[in-house]
Structures are given as C-alpha cells and as structure tokens.
C-alpha cells in the first residue's frame, strides 16, 4: 500500500494542531500582506506599463531603460552596494574574531555598542556623517562631502554589525578543538585559518555578505542625505522623480528595475541561507582564548573601526549639536520647541510625539502579525503539500525586507488613495507601512527561539492533556517571551527611524521626526542645521534607549530557554538551528 495516502486519510496527529488551525492563524497576516504589500507593488508595476488613458504601453519602461541616466544610476547603486559589502566583510571578519573569540575586558559592552549603528535611523546616520565631512566639519579638509567614499563609509557604518554578529555568533560556538587538532598536526596559524577556520565560517560570511548587499542596494535615507544629486541610487532617483519631477510613470519603471535588482540579491541571499544549514561541530561552551601577539593586527583593525568609523561620527554629531552661534550651549535643543520655518509647521517635540505614537501603533501591528506568522512557520508539517505551503509562506513574509521601503511608500500612494480603500487622509497608513518594513525583522527574531523548542517537550505536554491552545499559552509563549521583548525593541526602533516609506506618506501637519530632520537639513541656515543636529541626537538617544531596554528586558526574564537572544535570526546563521534543535 502507499503510505502517503493511507496516512493522509487519518486524522492529523501530534502537537501542531490541524492544518486548519495553521490556516486560521495565518489568514490575517496573509490578508495584510495582500492588501498592503502585494496590491500596492502590483499596482506600481502596472502603472509603469500603462499610459495616461490606462492602455498598455511599454513606453515609460523603455524610455527609462534607454536613458543613459538610468544606467549611470544603476551602475552607481551596484558599485556602492558592492563596495559597501566588500568593506563590511573585510572589516567585520576580524571584528567578529576579536569580539566573539578573544577574552578581552569589556567585550560584552563592545558587542552591544557595535549593534547600535544597525538600528540607528538612516537620516541620523546621514546627518552624523554630513556633520563630520562638511566643509566646516572636523574632516572637511578631506573634501569627501557628497562623494562615493562618504556613502560607502556610511553603508559600512550600518552593516559592520551585521557581519560581526552573524560571523561572530558562529565563530563563538565553533569547537576550538578542531583548530587545536590541526595545530597539533603541525599546521601554522595561517594554515589553520585558511584550511580549518575560514571554511567553517564560509556559510556565515556568505550569508552576511548577501544580506549586507541587500541592505546596501536598498539604502535610501543615508544616500539621500550624503550622496546628494551626483551619487544617487535607484531608490533616491524614485523619490526624486516622484516628489520633485512628479513623473510617476518613470518612477514606476524605476521601481520595477529596483524590484529586479532586489529580487536577484534576495535569491542569492536565500541560496546561501539554505547552504548554511549543514552540520558543524559546536562546542557545548563558548570557546574563547586569551589574546596572543599574533592577534594584534585584528585587535588594531577592530579598535580603529570602532573608534574611527562607529564612534567618531556619533560623537561629532553630539559635539556639533552643542555648537551655536553664541558658542557651546544647549541653544539648538531649546530651539526644538519652536517652529522656525514655514515649511515645518510643527515643532520638533510635536514631531517626536507623532513618531512615538506612530511607532507604537506600528509595533503593535508588527508584533501581532509577527507572532501569528512565526506560529505558522514554527509548525513541522508532515505532508509535502503543507511543507511547500509553509515554505511559500516563509518567503512571502521575507519579501518586504527585500522590496525597498520607497517602493512600498510609493505603492501606497497610488493604490490606497481611492475607493475601495481610501486611507490617504488617514494617519494609519504610516504605521501600516512601518509595520510592513519591521515585520521580517520581527519574524526573524521570534522564529529561531520558537524553532529551538524541542518538539518532544510539546509532545510531553500534549500527553499530559494539553491541547494546542494550552500548549501555546503555557509553553510556547512563555518560552518565546524573551524573543518577543527583543522583537518589540527592533520593531519600535525600526518604526521610529523609518524614513523611506514614511517620506512618501507623511502629511505636512503630522510629520515624524526623521521627516522633520530631513526637511531641516535640506534647508539653508545655520539654525536649521543646528536644529537638525539636535533633533538627530534626540532620535538617536530615543532609538538607543528603546533597544537597550529591550535587550535588558530580554536578559532579565526568568527561566531559561534554548537559543541566543542577542540578535534577530538573520543576524545569525541557520546553522545553530539544524545543529542543535534537531534532537
């Protein structure tokens, strides 16, 4: 007899509940994704292929594809993304070694410090680098303002932590005895590194590189602030065409082009993620070693990166925010209560309140959807049909990570502004867009923790009489709670600093803080710049506070569940899951 048929005919067994439960739980996030992601993006693509009368035309797309400007911008996007990725990896691998493998004083603080840039709002980073590189900034003599180098430096600033955390997370858990065995067989340090360590780390490095490329290629705020007109990318060009030239067909055509670039890098990223899932030998305890003389180059590079690349722009931002026309003081901060310019109709403090309210709403949406999505993704389907279903579901919710925020914002603008769903005048559009951007982060933070729960623990609970609802409330939810804390932090921080989509959707009377900062910095005048700097410090401090609290809450939670809570899943490799969770 054929096993599949006979078994499928029987009632579903185990602890996962029936597939109908999965469908019921998954339907809300799917509907959300369809209405607020698939529809706007599809409408955007359609807009690129239709003329003013609604007839099909390839004119906009072909004119965009035949324009020299387009290819210059595409070339620039790719060049900046490649350079940003290469430098991030070259600096990040020694950083991972120093921060995760060497026993150095204060390395916990340094690890926490390194993650801060990743969650900083892109506008803040742009302003910080600009304040460093402007003519009158400390590094103004280098003449790097609005340069390729400036953009790449800022991209590395953001993504250094992605490489350090991804590679370091794996490096810390590699069994040091494998290297010791190689050394005892007569291999030199360099040969051990080349033949044992780097091959073991290769999957993590590849997966980090793919992810960094994705982030670099879709970077928006930082490029808009730092690159100026001459170093734009596809993302900033879409923004420029929409908001300055009001050329929607061209913008739509460019969005299609950006979709192609992002989808390609997402596919590469996924491929490396799959290759990652192979068994590696892990130590039960983190292997760390005392620094040796041969570690000095790696330590020096890392110290230079942390001091020079990560701390200098932030300290410069802080320092320059304190400089006023009357000397050093809090003048810029005091001015945040006023509305100095006609174009900014609200004070920075009001915008801060707007931002907090919007981020709160976005966090609620993202967490609710993220828990539902993770619930479905953590099931262990048995039939090949439901396995495929879960895989498709998984990829669908990773898409917003890849599709640029600008595309989402632009898509909202052209779909949700008329019946059946006219949300143009409603402020909920912004939290919805922000939740969409934060959702992949939330899912990737929750999922590893959830998947690390031994299925047999749930089976033991089921045999003690617990059905799926009680399993969720009494076992699964308490065990993922720490992950939820961190996910809340990521969702809130991301929403607080979100600029790409928000810049399209924000209304003049209710701007968010990043939008106000961008408006201030785009305007001439020393006061405006001073206020932009002060407002950036406020936003950076808020973001750091949110992340710090989330990390602390995560650590204070009683009980101990398997898994590492230090970073969202995509900042680690998939290796841990297949290596440990399988038993």
């Amino acid at each position, binding site marked *: *007899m054929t*096993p*599949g048929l*006979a*078994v499928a005919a*029987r*009632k*579903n*067994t*185990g*602890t996962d509940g029936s597939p109908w439960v999965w469908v019921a739980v998954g339907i809300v996030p799917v509907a959300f994704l369809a209405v607020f992601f698939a529809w706007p993006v599809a409408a955007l693509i359609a807009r690129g292929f239709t003329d003013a009368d609604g007839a099909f035309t390839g004119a906009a797309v072909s004119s965009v594809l035949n324009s020299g400007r387009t290819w210059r911008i595409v070339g620039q996007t790719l060049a900046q993304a490649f350079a940003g990725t290469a430098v991030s990896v070259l600096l990040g691998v020694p950083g991972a070694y120093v921060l995760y493998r060497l026993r150095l004083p204060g390395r916990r603080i340094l690890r926490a410090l390194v993650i801060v840039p990743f969650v900083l709002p892109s506008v803040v980073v742009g302003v910080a680098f600009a304040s460093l590189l402007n003519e009158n900034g400390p590094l103004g003599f280098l003449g790097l303002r609005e340069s390729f180098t400036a953009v790449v430096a800022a991209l590395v600033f953001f993504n250094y932590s992605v490489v350090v955390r991804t590679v370091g997370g794996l490096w810390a858990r590699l069994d040091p005895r494998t290297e010791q065995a190689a050394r005892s067989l007569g291999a030199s340090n360099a040969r051990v590194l080349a033949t044992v360590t780097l091959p073991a780390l290769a999957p993590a490095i590849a997966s980090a590189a793919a992810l960094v490329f994705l982030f670099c290629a879709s970077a928006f705020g930082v490029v808009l602030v730092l690159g100026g007109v001459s170093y734009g990318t596809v993302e900033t060009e879409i923004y420029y065409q929409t908001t300055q030239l009001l050329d929607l067909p061209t913008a739509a055509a460019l969005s299609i082009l950006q979709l192609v670039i992002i989808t390609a890098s997402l596919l590469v990223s996924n491929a490396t993620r799959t290759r990652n899932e192979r068994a590696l030998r892990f130590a039960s305890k983190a292997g760390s070693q005392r620094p040796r003389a041969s570690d000095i180059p790696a330590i020096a590079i890392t110290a230079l990166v942390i001091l020079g690349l990560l701390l200098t722009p932030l300290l410069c931002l802080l320092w320059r925010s304190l400089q006023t026309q009357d000397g050093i003081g809090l003048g810029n901060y005091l001015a945040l209560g006023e509305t100095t310019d006609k174009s900014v109709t609200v004070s920075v403090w009001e915008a801060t309140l707007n931002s907090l309210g919007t981020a709160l709403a976005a966090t609620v949406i993202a967490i609710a959807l993220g828990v539902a999505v993770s619930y479905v993704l953590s099931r262990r389907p*048995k*039939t090949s049909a439901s396995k495929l279903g879960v895989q498709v579901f998984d990829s669908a919710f990773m898409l917003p990570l890849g599709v640029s925020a600008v595309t989402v914002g632009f898509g909202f603008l052209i779909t949700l502004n008329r019946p059946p769903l006219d949300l143009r005048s409603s402020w909920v559009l912004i939290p919805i867009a922000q939740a969409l951007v934060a959702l992949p982060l939330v899912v990737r933070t929750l999922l590893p923790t959830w998947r690390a729960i*031994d299925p*047999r*623990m749930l*089976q*033991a*609970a*089921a*045999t*003690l*009489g*617990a*059905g799926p609802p009680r399993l969720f409330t*009494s*076992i699964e939810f*308490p*065990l993922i709670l720490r992950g939820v804390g961190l996910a809340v932090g990521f969702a809130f921080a991301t929403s607080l600093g979100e600029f790409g989509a928000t810049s399209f959707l924000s209304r003049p009377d209710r701007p968010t803080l990043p939008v106000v900062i961008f408006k201030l910095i785009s305007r001439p005048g020393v006061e405006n710049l001073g206020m932009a700097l002060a407002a950036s410090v406020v936003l950076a401090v808020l973001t750091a506070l949110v992340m710090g609290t989330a990390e602390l809450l995560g650590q204070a939670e*009683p*009980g*101990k*569940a398997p898994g590492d809570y230090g970073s969202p899943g995509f900042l680690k490799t998939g290796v841990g899951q297949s290596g440990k969770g399988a038993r």
Partner: protein
Amino acid sequence: MMGSGLEVRNAVVYYERTKLAVDGVSLDVARGEVVAVLGASGSGKSTLLRAVAGLEPLANGRIVFDGVDLADVEVSKRGFVVMFQEGQLFPHLSVARNVAYGIRDLPRAEREQRVNELLHTVELDGYANRAISTLSGGEAQRVALARSLAPNPRLLLLDEPFSALDRALREHLLQVVSQALRLTRTTALLVTHDQDEAFALADRIAVLADGSIQQIATPDHLWRHPASREVAEFLGYGPFLEKPEAKALGIEIADGEVLGIGPRGLEAVEAHGQLLPSPQCFGFYVVVGETRHARGYIDAVVTLPHGQQARVRTKNEPDLRLGVRLVPEECVRVSAGA
C-alpha cells in the same frame, strides 16, 4: 483480561512517511502490567511507542484501550503520558508546577498534596520550588517521572527513560521507578535497547527487530527459552555451536538446533595445570587471545576448538592454553533458523 488495558493490533507505522518502521505489531498490556519493548536502535520501538501515544499516525491496524478504538482520539485526550529520554521538563516552570502540569483540574489543596506525595515517591522532598535549571540529570529525570505519574495515567509510556544517565545513577533510578510503578499500580509500556532496564522493570518483554515482534515472554522465560537465534543473540548469547560441535564439547542437542553459549556459559576449570573432572560434561582446552582486567576477575577472549571466539572469566592471568567447560544451564538450545 479481555477489554481491559491496551491492545495493539497489526499496527503499521511509517517513519517520516516513507520508511516502514513498525510492520504489523500486535501487543497487549493488561491493567497494572509493565511491558517492555526491547530492541536495537532502528528496530522501530520508539515509533511504536509514539504511535500508541498518538504522535505518529497509523498506516494500518488499530490501537484500542479498554475496548475503545483510539483512532479518532487526540493525543491530549488519550490519558497516556509519555516520559522521554531527556525528561523534557518545562524550563520556565518550577519543579512543583512541572509536576502539577497534568493535574490542573484538581482543587489547589489536593493538587499541592499530590505534588508533594509524588516528590516524596521519587525521593525529592523539598524540591517543589526549585528551578529546573538547578537540577542534575538524575534529579530532572525523577521530576519527569513524578510529572508523568501525577495525573494517574491509564497508560505510562516510557521512551528509553534512563539511557542518558551514567550507570550507577541508572541502576538507582531503576529501583525508584520499579518501586513507584508497583506502588501506584501503573500500567506501563517501556521501550528500551538496554536489556538490564527491560529485565528490571517489566512483567513481560517483547523483543522487536526490523519492526516486528520476535517474541513476547516473561523475563525469566525469555532468558531461558529465546525463540530464535536472533533473539538469543540480542539477549547476549553467543557464540553458537552446531550439533556436532556441541556434542564434541559434551552437550547433546537435537537436529536443526544450535547451542547458544550464555555470558557465563563457559567456565574455567583448571587447577595446577590439570583439567578438573566434571559430572556433566567434559573439560577441554582453548587457546587464549586477548585478556582484559575487570573488577575482581580477568576477562579472556578464547578460541574454541572449532574456531569460534568466546569469552571466559578467570581468576588469574591465564597461560596460552586454558582448560574450560560448558555450563549446560547457562546455555540455550535454539532453532538454527534460516
């Protein structure tokens, strides 16, 4: 005993939907009885246990308890509790709340009393408020046992409960469990690859190989009369002697039978370089190979006259040649098989 307890009838289970793991197993566990399923790893024993619990779907056959077919009864409604090898305690709950997990419907006072009773049974008085992370492996396993017994399961399913523990601890825990099972008159199905575990706990033992049951018998009967050469081999008999070989060494067996030598089936019989006379069978000389020191004796690998390798215990380091005899009551006659 009809209609009372567990009846497994012709159970067929596929592992991961494609590999045949359990191939037509029928097995009864009467009320209050402890049955062990003994098999090597990969014999399908854990899959069988999971199918009884409702964690794996049956491809064919029936699982019945007290006359009720369980095909449509969910895991959580069967009243069967599984105790896993690693305990699978809930790390976010205290010891007491772990034990109370399956009895939340009891009134509070009664529940607390039951928890304390059970912690006493598993010799963990005073552990109620301890965190799971502070327990040793043996303590965790005893908490898991208490948790499994708390709801008075109509069937307790034990999946290699002590394999992960070291030997001394395992022997002590076997006593604790054995006592707890008798005391609570719990009906239990145990699967294990460990002969000692099965013999220590079970009223009856089912030997499983390649997904089907080779023999079901009481421990004593199983040891004395293994049904086949494979079963005897799995229990630790060997080497096996053909009829003429056995006869040459002093034991008569029937046609189509082989003689399995038990772990103590070969005895050193030599003093001052002379074979001692024996009432039942002859002494003979064997060639001594490797020897190894064990606690209180020396374990020697010897080559029998017909070439088979066997083990024998001696008091002193043997010479190249050693006089031995077969001990008939420590050997079994089994059918030669295919």
